[in-house]
């Protein structure tokens, strides 16, 4: 075998924007200084679904609507029009730990039928609705898990850019908890509260700084900041951290990290 590579470096990529919606509001400016204190004992800080026009959305789940809203927030942050991301040159990498659980629980509880509801139980429903809405027909990947899966997603997106599989990559994360608050209460050894619903999307472009993909021994300062300011957002946490670092305006080193089920992952962009 090759000598162990301490870090898997990629070619340069840059963050061109981050759209962030959380139960606290839109953007990093809406995050409280201390999420635990701001939660005031509430287990879940919910995020209201956006009101989207169009009969096409009549069956879409709240998670799907939030995914679309996160991409719209990204377009606002990056100053782009929808046409800028339409077509086969845009990759979509979606990640979530649990934004399918509510649909699954509803399907389990439904008495019969469910033909129209069943496709929305799949984790792939959220990126599917986003792809349909924005006309995204490029490379496609969906990863499941907590914050490390989002790190993996960001890194896989940089690989897609490196392999010339696309000209730009959207990394989208959605997490909802409200409908399954009881289940999360049973699983509290897996997560620390407050659980804060979130939807976030980052736009990666080629060029800029190389990113190194490797586990960090402990939480990075940015990771800890995102946890303190936003609360538990699972797969959205690394994108919350990106937004807190200034997104496209970040200049110093960017060290993202996350832990889930005992596994740590990290992605670091050197300073510029």
């Amino acid at each position, binding site marked *: *075998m*090759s000598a*162990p*590579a301490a870090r*898997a470096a*990629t070619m340069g990529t840059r963050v061109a924007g981050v759209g962030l919606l959380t139960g606290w509001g839109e953007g990093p400016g809406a995050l409280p200084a201390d999420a635990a204190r701001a939660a005031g004992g509430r287990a879940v800080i919910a995020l209201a679904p956006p009101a989207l026009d169009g009969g096409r959305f009549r069956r879409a789940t709240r998670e799907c609507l939030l995914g679309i809203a996160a991409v719209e927030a990204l377009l606002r942050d990056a100053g782009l029009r929808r046409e800028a991301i339409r077509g*086969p040159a845009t990759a*979509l990498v979606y990640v979530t*730990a*649990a934004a*399918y*659980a509510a649909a*699954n*629980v509803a*399907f*389990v*509880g439904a008495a019969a*039928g*469910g*033909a129209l509801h*069943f*496709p929305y*139980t*799949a*984790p*792939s*429903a959220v*990126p*599917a*609705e986003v*792809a*349909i809405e924005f*006309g*995204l*027909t*490029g*490379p*496609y*990947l*969906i*990863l*499941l*898990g907590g914050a*490390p*899966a989002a790190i*993996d997603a960001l890194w*896989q997106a940089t*690989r897609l850019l490196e*392999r*010339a*599989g696309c000209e730009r990559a959207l990394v989208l994360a959605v997490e909802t908890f409200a409908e399954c608050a009881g*289940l999360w209460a*049973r*699983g509290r*050894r897996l997560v620390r509260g407050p659980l804060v619903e979130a939807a976030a999307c980052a736009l990666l472009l080629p060029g800029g700084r190389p990113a190194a*993909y*490797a586990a960090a021994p402990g939480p990075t300062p940015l990771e800890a900041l995102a946890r303190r300011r936003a609360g538990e957002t699972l797969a959205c946490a690394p994108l919350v951290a990106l937004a807190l670092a200034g997104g496209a305006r970040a200049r110093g080193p960017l060290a993202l990290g996350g832990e889930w*089920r*005992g*596994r740590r992952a990290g992605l670091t962009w050197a300073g510029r």
Partner: protein
Amino acid sequence: MARPAAEPIAILGAGAVTPLGADVDAFWSGLVTGADGISRIERFFVDDLRVGRGGEIKKLRALRPEAPRGDCRASRLLLQAAEDLLARVAPGAAPDRIAVAVGTALGGVEQLERAVGAGGRLRHAAGGLYEAPAHALARRLGARGPVLTVSTACASGASALGAAAELLRAGAADVVVAGGYDILCRFVLRGFDALRSLTRDRVRPFDRRRSGLLLGEAAALVLMTRERDARGPRLGRLLGHASGSDGAHIAAPDPEGRGLELALRAALADAGVGPDDVDFVSAHGTGTPLNDRIETEVLKRVLGPRAWTVPVNSIKGGLGHTMGAAATLEAIMCLLAAREGVLPATLGLEERDPACDLDYVAPAARPAHLRVSVSTSLGFGGCNAALVLEGATP
């Protein structure tokens, strides 16, 4: 501008558990002899459903004592496939250089059903998250590198191999145990039954009378490493992979197959091979009217005039659609077909559909000398993926 081929990835071995048997040998012999793994489902209540048949695994082997304990069937299938794999080839790398990348459409959803029910317990809630079985596999392997769960619906098993290849090409791991799995459970059978996707007939890929799919359960894994690091015999190589989104419909494929075409063309480019190099196509071939017609049309567009001379098969007639496991099983089948010089037949194909006019392997297995195979996959939400594989020919 053409780009250079990506680094090939060696596939050192495979493990599986399928409705055709408890290991890869049973899977292959079942395919070659035309064994039918479809039966009446016995493990859960199906009497209220239109269709109660599928590729059910009737008995699971006892796992080794060191395997993680639990009652999650998805994890058990995955671990049984891992034991088959480990009996054939060892990972041979430091724990922090071993990664896991597995695909699934359903994860441990049956655990979620239990968690929601009366007396639901913590382990069921945590196991109901779809990535729980991948972590059980990582614990069994002692893997401390990246642990990826890919969920591109029924293309998951192909997407997982693609994600694994990128971990290796970029040096993020030295070996990856990659593949896919899914179980038959009431949740998924109810869903497909409600969609009227299931056939009351047998599965008939590319047949004029095809009327839908049947589901199956399976787990399949391969051990992958960089070609330049591979030592000893190998099953074959993953030359290229790619994905493409339809952006068209939540549950139905794009009628023109544009996402699949993009994935197939990009996978060939990734592999550095052209249509003239393709010796065999393992089609998704679900037996639904739309899927089989779309795949046929896409193959014609991508392979050009050669499309009519390249043999194509689907193995879902005897297994059912094993969802997250399907693409990995089909990749393993491609590599075994090259090694053994035999193409398994498309079970259920008896009367050709004029709209599906390629060289489908039927009614019996056929001898063949092949090097480069292509495997195509489509999934809910417009997920499409393609793999380009090279067998270790005899």
